[in-house]
């Protein structure tokens, strides 16, 4: 019995370490131009034609790819187009292949929040209704405002980037302001709103597991809706499940996989799979 539980712990640790390694590698690939931090510039090569699957500001000096949510707003708000088929198609294809496993394994901002949550503090759960905020943000700030609120040339502003996203400020603004003193003259009221969002996100992530993912992220909202169709998924063998509730207790995204394996909140982290004493849960590519 003792050996079995030790085995289980070993398995769980090794899986969570494997996931961390994948997250760190994904972080490194998405932000491979570290040298740009000291030079105060951003990467301008051809890889920026493509979107990263996770949330990562393209104004971060190290960013190698475009941010999918920034790109979606840029094309939706551009003079010539009202809807980006390129980015929408990309998100649908990636989402149906992996679902929110992108959040669990490949999103740099998800990793940042997980590390913030390691800071010792009382850990709390969010009220369930807060998870719906991210859908409102997706519709209002990402899809509607950039198309509806435009200047005299018909160009809309990226409202999510401008008012909500803390990634731009954390990954882009703070490093660039430190190397470009002349940029400091352009600090205005928007800066204060964004700074407030950064403070809320950092404080929230320390207390609540993946606070930004749960409440604000429009990319998580899109991938979450696609969990239901994704090829990479979580399944349960109801013949093996004894309803002990261990899986729901370890889930930091507040999901009960016995009730719904395709929950929009499940980031496919695998913690429940390794907590299950009956091996009733399975995570991977399946029909």
């Amino acid at each position: 019995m003792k050996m079995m539980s030790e085995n289980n712990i070993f398995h769980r640790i090794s899986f969570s370490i494997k996931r961390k390694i994948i997250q760190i590698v994904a972080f490194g690939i998405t932000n491979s131009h570290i040298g740009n931090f000291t030079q105060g510039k951003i990467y301008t090569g051809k890889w920026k034609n493509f979107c990263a699957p996770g949330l990562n500001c393209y104004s971060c000096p190290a960013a190698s790819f475009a941010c999918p949510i920034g790109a979606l707003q840029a094309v939706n708000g551009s003079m010539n187009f009202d809807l980006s088929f390129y980015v929408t198609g990309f998100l649908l294809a990636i989402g149906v292949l992996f679902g929110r496993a992108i959040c669990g394994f490949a999103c740099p901002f998800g990793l940042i929040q997980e590390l913030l949550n390691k800071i010792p503090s009382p850990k709390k759960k969010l009220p369930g209704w807060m998870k719906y905020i991210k859908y409102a943000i997706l519709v209002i700030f990402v899809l509607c405002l950039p198309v509806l609120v435009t200047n005299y040339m018909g160009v809309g502003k990226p409202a999510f980037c401008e008012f909500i996203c803390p990634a731009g400020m954390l990954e882009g603004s703070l490093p660039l302001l430190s190397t470009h003193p002349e940029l400091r003259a352009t600090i205005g009221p928007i800066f204060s709103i964004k700074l407030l969002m950064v403070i809320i996100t950092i404080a929230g992530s320390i207390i609540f597991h993946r606070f930004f993912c749960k409440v604000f992220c429009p990319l998580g909202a899109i991938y979450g809706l696609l969990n239901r169709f994704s090829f990479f998924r979580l399944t349960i063998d109801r013949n093996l499940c004894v309803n002990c509730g261990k899986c729901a207790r370890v889930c930091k995204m507040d999901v009960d996989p016995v009730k719904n394996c395709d929950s929009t909140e499940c980031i496919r982290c695998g913690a429940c799979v390794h907590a299950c004493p009956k091996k009733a849960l399975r995570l991977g590519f399946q029909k």
Partner: protein
Amino acid sequence: MNNLRNGLKVQQRLTASVSVLLFGICLMLYGIHRDEMAVVLNKAVHICLECIGLG
């Protein structure tokens, strides 16, 4: 009976997933064809002042 129902569900899900995947790929190709990548590149290679809270 249960097995039959599960088999049907798996089949339906697979059909939906493959359809969404193909639809996504078609959208992406159409977007590339009408040169949306140029807009993405142009945005991504300039420091976006709104994104970083300046301007």
